[in-house]
């Protein structure tokens, strides 16, 4: 690797990825802010009231993007965890650990906003239907991965245990996604299906897509911020980590 120092694999070393992650953060933070402003404008101002649900349906514009991110971040976390398990690259496991809390947060937001949408529309905060229950299981999987990794002192063993749980839990993601088809649920079907004309107007579709992108960019920011903390913490005895603190 020393022969070609500019090769991208050099960034698999935590010490080299640390400054790179720092430089990448603004490139995701600025779009995150702009997309949030644009998305909220579309969701709260431009989009017309729904003819059946009135203004309450506006919860959808954070509920659906948060639910998508909760599943997408889980898959991303599991892929990193899998690579960490198989190839034994430490940075992959650190990325998995960096993504987990943000994924758990979006899972909670999906459940919370869904609850505040369900109350006025279904008349209840919660039902044990397949979609809601499997999303709750997703939250427990995230928390389980985080708790397991935190409970083991040796980082390598912690990565392996957490990674294994993350991988096993992946089966839950298609269950969440297809739950509205496989079971008779109170939860409505997919708002946007692949290969089918969307059942909602263009501006609603745009609002959802823009908010999803905003959440995605936000997730990059928090994942990079957190992975920098994880790297610095684990490499705290290394010479470079000591120097980093001086240059801020």
């Amino acid at each position: 690797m020393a022969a070609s120092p500019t090769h991208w694999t050099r960034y698999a070393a935590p010490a080299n990825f640390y400054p790179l992650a720092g430089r990448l953060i603004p490139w995701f933070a600025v779009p995150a802010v702009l997309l949030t402003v644009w998305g909220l404008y579309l969701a709260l101002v431009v989009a017309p009231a729904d003819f059946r649900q009135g203004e309450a349906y506006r919860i959808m514009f954070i509920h659906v993007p948060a639910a998508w991110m909760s599943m997408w971040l889980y898959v991303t976390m599991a892929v990193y965890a899998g690579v960490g398990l198989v190839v034994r690259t430490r940075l992959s496991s650190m990325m998995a650990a960096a993504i987990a809390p943000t994924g758990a947060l979006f899972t909670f937001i999906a459940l919370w906003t869904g609850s505040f949408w369900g109350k006025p529309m279904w008349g209840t905060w919660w039902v044990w239907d397949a979609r809601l229950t499997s999303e709750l299981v997703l939250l427990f999987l995230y928390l389980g991965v985080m708790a397991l990794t935190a409970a083991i002192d040796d980082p390598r063993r912690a990565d392996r245990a957490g990674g294994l749980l993350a991988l096993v839990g992946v089966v839950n993601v298609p269950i969440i996604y297809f739950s509205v088809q496989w079971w008779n649920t109170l939860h409505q079907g997919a708002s946007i299906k692949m290969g089918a004309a969307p059942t909602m107007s263009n501006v609603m579709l745009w609002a959802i897509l823009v908010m999803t992108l905003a959440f995605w960019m936000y997730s990059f920011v928090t994942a990079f911020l957190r992975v920098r903390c994880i790297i610095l913490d684990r490499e705290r005895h290394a010479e470079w980590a000591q120097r980093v603190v001086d240059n801020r």
Partner: protein
Amino acid sequence: MRGWTEFWQMGGYARFVWSAYGVTAVLLAAELVQLVLRRRNLARRLKQMRNLRTD
């Protein structure tokens, strides 16, 4: 465009819509603050470690 009062009332669903949006905003902001604080604590700890070593 609708008026401000009408906007905040959300057609009578204000409680639900703003609880959903508000909690989301607070949680996302809290995560960012927590990460900044974590980084600050880490930097302080690293400096302490080094000072102990050089003393």
